[in-house]
């Protein structure tokens, strides 16, 4: 996923959560990002510093990576992701739209494109920590 879009989404989602739960200051957000997303940590941090609203003034932005695992629906083979040998265009296509993995990656055993991304596709907001304002 595009880093700036991801951070925008995280901030909007966390801000909504904070509002619903009376949190007046967010201290930490933990985001889990699948390896397939190929997001760059520095870009994420930079985007967060630039996009954060006062609610996140002192917040830590924690990124956890989850390795990608593929499982072939045809032969049951399981394997991992590597961008080695991929052209820049292909790697970027998968970065922007991870489902493009089904276009460019084939089962390492039988060559089928019908595989499941068992792990490491998504992005989600795992935890938000914060301080509640006066009731």
């Amino acid at each position, binding site marked *: 996923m595009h880093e700036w879009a991801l951070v925008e*989404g995280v901030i909007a*989602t966390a801000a909504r959560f904070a509002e619903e739960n009376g949190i007046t200051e967010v201290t930490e957000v933990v985001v889990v990002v699948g390896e397939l997303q190929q997001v760059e940590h520095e870009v994420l941090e930079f985007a967060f510093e630039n996009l954060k609203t006062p609610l996140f003034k002192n917040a830590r932005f924690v990124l956890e990576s989850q390795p990608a695992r593929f499982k072939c629906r045809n032969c049951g083979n399981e394997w991992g992701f590597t961008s080695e040998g991929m052209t820049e265009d292909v790697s970027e296509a998968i970065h922007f*739209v*991870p489902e*493009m993995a089904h276009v*460019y990656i084939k089962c390492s055993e039988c060559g089928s494109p019908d595989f499941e991304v068992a792990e490491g596709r998504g992005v*989600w907001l795992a935890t938000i920590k914060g301080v509640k304002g006066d009731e």
Partner: protein
Amino acid sequence: MSDPRIAIIEKRFQKVRRVIAVSSGKGGVGKSMIATALALSLKDRGHSVGLLDLDFTSPATHVILGVEGLYPEEEYGIVPPMAHGLRYMSITHYSVDEPTPLRGEDVSNAIIELLAITRWGELDCLVVDMPPGIGDATLDTIRLIPSIEFIVATTPSRVAFQSVRRLLVLLKDLRVPIIGVCENMVMNPGGYVREEVERLGLEYLASVAYDEEVEEALGDPEALRKTRFYKELDEVSRRL
């Protein structure tokens, strides 16, 4: 545990005044042709227009527009390239002409991702070319795109209209605005589809004739604009 992509989608459509999906319960009835012609004609009327091709299995608008090798710009997200004056987004920017074998959940994820990263900017209208049927793509666009409206395409065939009717009933049940129904590839104008549409209390937008020149005009918007097909859709866009 929540998906941060959903929260930005609404924001992405903030400055898009109208979103019109061209859809059908049936395949091959002319959705992509109608969507492209409507987008071009709205643009010719001076509106700022986007075109989004959401048919991952059979993307077609790039063929109708005659564009290839377009690549979106990266700027705090993805900015769709211009194609013949339209802000144009298609999976083919990334898949080129390779097959995209996606299952239901993958389709949903790819749609969410595209909607979340694409920065349309300010548009009078975004036309969406939908895949056929009432599967994940249709349900997701309805769920995710605020204030989406539908133009539903059919052919005169009763077989086509049976599927189309199911889509229309679904849209009504979901309280999604239906602009109307466009009957396409009409060879013998008759009243069947119009009657059925009006019986559902919906607007019958146009009877668009089967036009042999359409095939010749594929890939060439200038030639397309000269066809009877285009003129008939131009009339629909005038009334939008």
